């Protein structure tokens, strides 16, 4: 058996394990009248994650032993017609392998944590179906060798994230926040899709080696002009901004904390929120061609970091504080990428993701930890005024506090200047259509106007 065949078999295991996990859990919830027992779900998840992890570590070991920096694994041409092809290809290199291993390690940890945290929760099966979709999306995104494959994984991550935010769907707040997350993700996906189409037209295909060069990451030389790099790069930056909650899309991140703690930890604290930075790292050869693009990336990163640092200081619950701390670090990572510090950015991602996962899973026991600490030192934890607190005037501090507590007014800005005018225009059009059909009908034309909102259980009882 040649090394290439071993690489191919291991690559199949890395991608296949989460795919099989999602298929089993998804089909069982669709076809069976009763969901699988908790123990079975946990076992299947553990086996799949361990298989993927062992295979990806084996690939890393072989790459190190053989001195290979780039192992492309093509799983075949999915669609092939003249002028269009869709190749399912995965790339194992210095960027994707650490990211895949990180995904398996953190998802495995959180899977084990969730099997206890979610015990006897009515949506236990639903949680693990979405969890498996998330793992699959993360692995496909991190290993993708074409922008179309990356887009597929990107969408899976988006859908699973939005549905997990709305996990506790009996209450309206998580559902509204889930929808908000989905809206931002859809626009982020749209930007990525447009970038993919533009690349198709520029290079005749979405294979990364066609426009990023065939050199192993991060040494590739992009095969497009500076202007083309700027256009595609800005689209990808918009996609990354949506996924990593950079300005002006930062509002969705604290809202995403409505989901169960395990999903908050692994998605918004550790993995999902880093996907934007990962995308920028993947296309980093493009950044080299356009100083203006690099400037935009750095400015966006630094401004988001500043905003997140200020907003994080005023949060009153631990998960929101942690998510802004997370956003601060992600923004700094983005700025590092813009400055060309790719290995530092990668190491920063790996370290930050692990630390933040730990902090998130410890979050529910924060008060207990604090009490233990205070008992140990025998007094209340001292609270000293910080450096800026002493330097800044009270008036400025109040202004900053309001700015922070309102989360930079970003959500209000998007609501007032984009969403509300959009809805008003279409509501006016709806009214115009109503008047038109009323005119032709010669009376009230809409039966649906008589559809009353469904009565709640209490109304029915009364």
């Amino acid at each position, binding site marked *: 058996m040649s090394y290439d065949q071993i690489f191919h078999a291991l690559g199949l295991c890395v991608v296949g394990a989460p795919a099989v996990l999602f298929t089993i859990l998804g089909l069982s*919830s*669709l076809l069976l009248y009763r969901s699988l027992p908790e123990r079975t779900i946990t076992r299947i998840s553990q086996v799949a994650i361990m298989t993927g992890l062992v295979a990806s570590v084996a690939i890393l070991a072989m790459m190190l032993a053989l001195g290979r920096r780039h192992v492309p694994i093509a799983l075949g*041409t*999915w*669609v*092939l*017609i*003249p*002028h*269009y*092809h*869709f*190749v399912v290809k995965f790339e194992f290199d210095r960027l994707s392998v650490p990211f895949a291993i990180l995904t398996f390690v953190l998802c495995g940890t959180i899977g084990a944590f969730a099997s206890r945290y979610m015990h006897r929760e*009515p949506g236990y099966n639903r949680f693990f179906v979405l969890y498996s979709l998330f793992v699959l999306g993360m692995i496909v995104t991190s290993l993708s060798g074409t922008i179309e494959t990356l*887009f*597929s*994984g990107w*969408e899976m991550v988006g*859908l699973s994230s*939005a549905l997990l935010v709305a996990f506790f*769907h*009996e209450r*309206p707040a998580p*559902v509204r926040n889930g*929808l908000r997350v*989905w*809206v931002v993700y*859809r*626009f982020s*996906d*749209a930007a990525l*899709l*447009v970038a993919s*189409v533009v690349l*198709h*037209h520029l290079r*005749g*295909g979405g294979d990364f080696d066609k426009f990023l060069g065939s050199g192993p990451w991060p040494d590739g030389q992009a095969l497009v002009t500076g202007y083309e790099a700027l256009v595609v790069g800005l689209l990808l930056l918009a996609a990354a901004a949506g996924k990593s909650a950079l300005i002006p899309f930062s509002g969705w991140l604290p809202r995403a904390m409505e989901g169960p703690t395990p999903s908050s930890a692994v998605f918004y604290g550790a993995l999902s929120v880093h996907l934007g930075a990962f995308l920028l790292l993947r296309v980093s050869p493009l950044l080299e061609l356009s100083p203006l693009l690099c400037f935009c990336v750095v400015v966006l990163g630094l401004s988001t970091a500043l905003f997140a640092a200020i907003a994080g200081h005023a949060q009153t619950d631990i998960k929101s504080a942690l998510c802004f701390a997370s956003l601060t670090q992600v923004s700094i990572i983005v700025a590092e990428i813009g400055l060309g510090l790719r290995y530092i950015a990668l190491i920063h991602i790996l370290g930050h993701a692990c630390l933040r996962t730990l902090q998130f899973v410890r979050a529910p026991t924060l008060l207990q930890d604090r009490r233990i600490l205070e008992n140990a030192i025998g007094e209340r934890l001292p609270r000293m005024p910080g450096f800026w607190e002493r330097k800044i005037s009270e008036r400025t501090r109040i202004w900053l506090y309001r700015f922070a507590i309102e989360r930079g007014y970003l959500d209000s800005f998007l609501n007032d200047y984009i969403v509300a005018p*959009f*809805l008003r225009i*279409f*509501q006016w*059009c*709806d009214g115009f*259509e109503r008047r*038109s*059909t009323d005119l*032709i*009908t010669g*009376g009230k*034309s*809409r*039966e*649906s106007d*008589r*559809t*009353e*909102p*469904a009565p709640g*259980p209490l109304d029915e009882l009364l």
Partner: protein
Amino acid sequence: MTDLHLPWLEASILISLIGSLIVSRLRDSDEARRWTLCFSGATLVSSVGAWIDFHELHVLQADDAWHFLSYLVGRELLIVDQLSAPLLPLVALLFFLTTLATLRTKIRRFSFALTLLSEAIVLATFSCKEPWGIIALLSIGTIPPLLELINRGKPIRVFAFHMVLFIAMLVVGWWYVEVEGGAAQRVHSLWAIVPLLIAIFIRNGIAPFHLWMSDLFEHATFGTALLFVTPIVGAYAAVRLVLPVAPDWVLRSIGLISLFTAVYAAGMALVQREARRYFCYLFLSHSAFVLMGLEIVTKTALTGALCVWLSIGLSLGGFGLTIRALEGRRGRLSLTDFKGLYEHTPALAVCFLLTGLASVGFPGTLGFIGTELLVDGVVEAYPYIGIAIVLAGALNGIGMVQTYFRLFTGTRYTSSVSLQISPRERFAVLALAALLLVGGLAPQSNVKSRFDAAEEILIERQAVSGGPPVEHESEHGHDDHGEPVKAEEHMPH
């Protein structure tokens, strides 16, 4: 022309017609449904037979065997070709599953005889390439929904006004085409083109000619409205009647207006307060996608449009059946509050998500590659404005999840009766979901067949309107990156 091995086309139409006659005589609704299922099932078998038979023949188009109809009317009326071959089983499947998933509470309201009659008409339309035949069938096809509206005492003015205008424009337009030398004539005046355009706009619900569709969803039964719109016969009329005779600038204009409609309908779907109207606008946005791709007349866009045609037929068919199943339990569904139906019908919730995601081209579903190809083709034709199609797709995705949340989440609805999905409904939505997933995970054969159909459409248009010849690229090879390879490169050394 090559013949099929059996008269599949005539059989499928005749079975539905005979079924319609027999069922119309039955008074018992339960019995009517059973018989409708039998006839509709037989029609499905026959149309699948036509598809497989045609596929095995490896020809561009084929006649029915034994030529009964040709013997009667003196010319070949029913033909199956690359375009229509998969549309016939799609139509038959939609009619069969809609009948199957009709709840006992709804069978008195839903006319099974008219449903079978509609099925026969739609199948005949998709089997016909004769312009006057298509016009006649499209005109007759408007009668069953109209009869239902009249029978139920609902207002008919909006629907009737639009359909009368549609038929008049079709007849006037094609009459002018014939007066000016028929389809073989290269250039036609606006007197011929504009009426045809208006007719196509009306039947496809292109803004501002779309009011009849929301009105139909308001007043007809959901099943009837669903079956009248989901096969998208208006797009078929566009391919057969407009594409061969319209100059390029007209087609590009249709494409742009369709693009506007796709965005407009996607935006309108977001502000709807009732589930049927939401579905109507979601469908309008998607059917505008199809028409836009068809009128761009490049291979990529045409292939994408034909793929999307099939995928939205299946996905929005399933999506509509899911909403219809929910309506059967809760009555008309307001979207202004949370219904909390998830715990009662998790399978319906999953099917709702699955079919909805397939309609917006989610990866791994049938719509994914089609949407990619369509976006590619549209952006190629309209480099800046074309990006609006991506916006429309994003809005449709947002609307779909918003509706999912409205219907399935919220405080659990308490009911004294079980709201579980029935085995029949389960079979119907799972069958559609399975087709969407299988087609999405193994898309090559579908995309290749739609590419062949796109080539045929372009060649037919070329034969009529002149211009550089269109080569059959699918007969050549292509390398791993989809670039065409000349025939001699394939020859052995």
